């Protein structure tokens, strides 16, 4: 479904992605792990065209994304941003139904679909008319998740979906992500450094470090990968090949 070959991206002298080769099969859930600042978010933004890669190719369903019409390409994606990125100026239902409203769907129908999507992530109808600032952090994440999946996209990206949430809310979000992927049959890429998220939502896991994919394999192999980078990361050891600042 998604194929990356030789993807490179630098910001000045700082090489963030250094020749990434990655495949994500249709309907599968890949989780990319790695420390903060290792380029996980940049990887997703390169695929979406929010950041222009310096080199490499990105293919979606076998087609080079640079040759696809931009709107048609983006309409196949949903994305949950780290902070939710709900539009402050719009009530929750208009955030969730943004794509439908843009496609000139009648407002009543768009609102009904938004309320359905909110219900799927466990938010009651009364939240539909609230503004994002009136919701708690966990509710904002759920509303953002509802927006990401509202138009039943083929591919969904989740950027640090549980960052800043308490363990219970993080568990709820993880379960919702897994359900969304399973129910929608969507292809999912999640970036996180939360190991609970990894075990809940991943079919496959990739470790990004130093601009390269150090390891990739099935989730079941993660705990006995034999890779020192993976071992250090998943056990949170301060000593190992991944240098830490103190």
């Amino acid at each position, binding site marked *: 479904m998604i194929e990356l070959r030789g993807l490179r991206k630098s910001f000045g002298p700082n090489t963030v992605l250094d020749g990434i080769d990655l495949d994500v099969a249709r309907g599968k859930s890949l989780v990319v792990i790695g420390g903060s600042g290792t380029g996980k978010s940049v990887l997703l933004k390169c695929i979406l065209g929010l950041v222009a890669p310096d080199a490499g190719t990105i293919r979606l369903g076998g087609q080079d994304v640079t040759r696809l019409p931009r709107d048609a390409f*983006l309409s196949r994606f949903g994305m949950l941003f780290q902070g939710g*990125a709900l539009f*402050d100026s719009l009530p929750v239902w208009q955030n969730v139904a943004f794509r439908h409203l843009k496609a000139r769907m009648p407002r009543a129908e768009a609102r009904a679909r938004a309320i359905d999507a909110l219900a799927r992530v466990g938010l009651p109808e009364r939240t539909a008319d609230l503004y994002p600032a009136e919701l708690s952090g966990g509710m904002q994440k759920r509303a953002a998740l509802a927006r990401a999946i509202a138009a039943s996209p083929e591919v969904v990206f989740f950027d640090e979906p549980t960052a800043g949430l308490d363990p219970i809310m993080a568990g709820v979000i993880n379960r919702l992500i897994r359900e969304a992927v399973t129910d929608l049959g969507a292809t999912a890429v999640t970036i996180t450094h939360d190991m609970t998220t990894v075990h809940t939502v991943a079919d496959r896991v990739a470790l990004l470090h130093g601009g390269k994919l150090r390891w990739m394999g099935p989730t079941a192999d993660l705990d006995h990968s034999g890779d020192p980078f993976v071992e250090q990361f998943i056990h949170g050891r301060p000593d190992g090949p991944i240098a830490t600042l103190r």
Partner: protein
Amino acid sequence: MILLSAIGRLGAWTLALLAGIGRFAAFTLETLSHAVRPPFHGREIALALLQMGWLSLPVVGLTALFTGGALALQIYAGGNRFGAEAVVPQIVAIGMVRELGPVLVGLMIAARVTSSVAAEIATMKVTEQIDALVTLSTHPMKYLVLPRVLAGLVSVPVLVGIGDIIGVMGGWLVATERLGFVSTSYLHNTINFLEPLDIISSLAKGAVFGFLAALMGCWFGLNSGRGAMGVGRATKGAVVAASVAILAANLVLTEAFFSA
């Protein structure tokens, strides 16, 4: 060595300035190009008109009212020195319509609207809302920039027209209540003295100032740095740039309209 270093820094600064001007020019052209390319976000345009036009009326009206009144007092006091007190209606009219109306409305819009546009868009950028717009197949230039620039272009001339009238009436109020002018003759002198070009220049200045104020807010917002400091810098830069641009444009337009 020190001289070479200073020249090097000056060169780098000049290059950065030229690059910035080039990027801003490209941004302006891209904004204008979206004005003739659908789709258009009618709801966003209507909201921007409400924000920039209707909701700016109180501050514009009060500014014009007080300025017109103060202008009448100043002209009366100054004219008194050489026996020209009677020209208060004419000078208030020409002063408000040609200069003070458009410039003060422009500056109030820079303070009220440019700051809020820059802060809003910068916050959207910092919180990834602009990236979210893109992923929802919505062009930020069409959704955020064009509505605000169009609203500035359309609503500020209207505000200037209203400000001109309120300013003249502020002068009339002070002149008739404090300075002993006769109401009907004051208004008669005001209307007779103004020429169509005075009004046209006033409204044209309003359109240009509104365009600049909105454009600066959008430009600085979209190019803000990270975090609260980035938003603060963007807001401050937008207001300063819009104010200076409005005053500079005022000089150019005054020269264009009245130099002959």
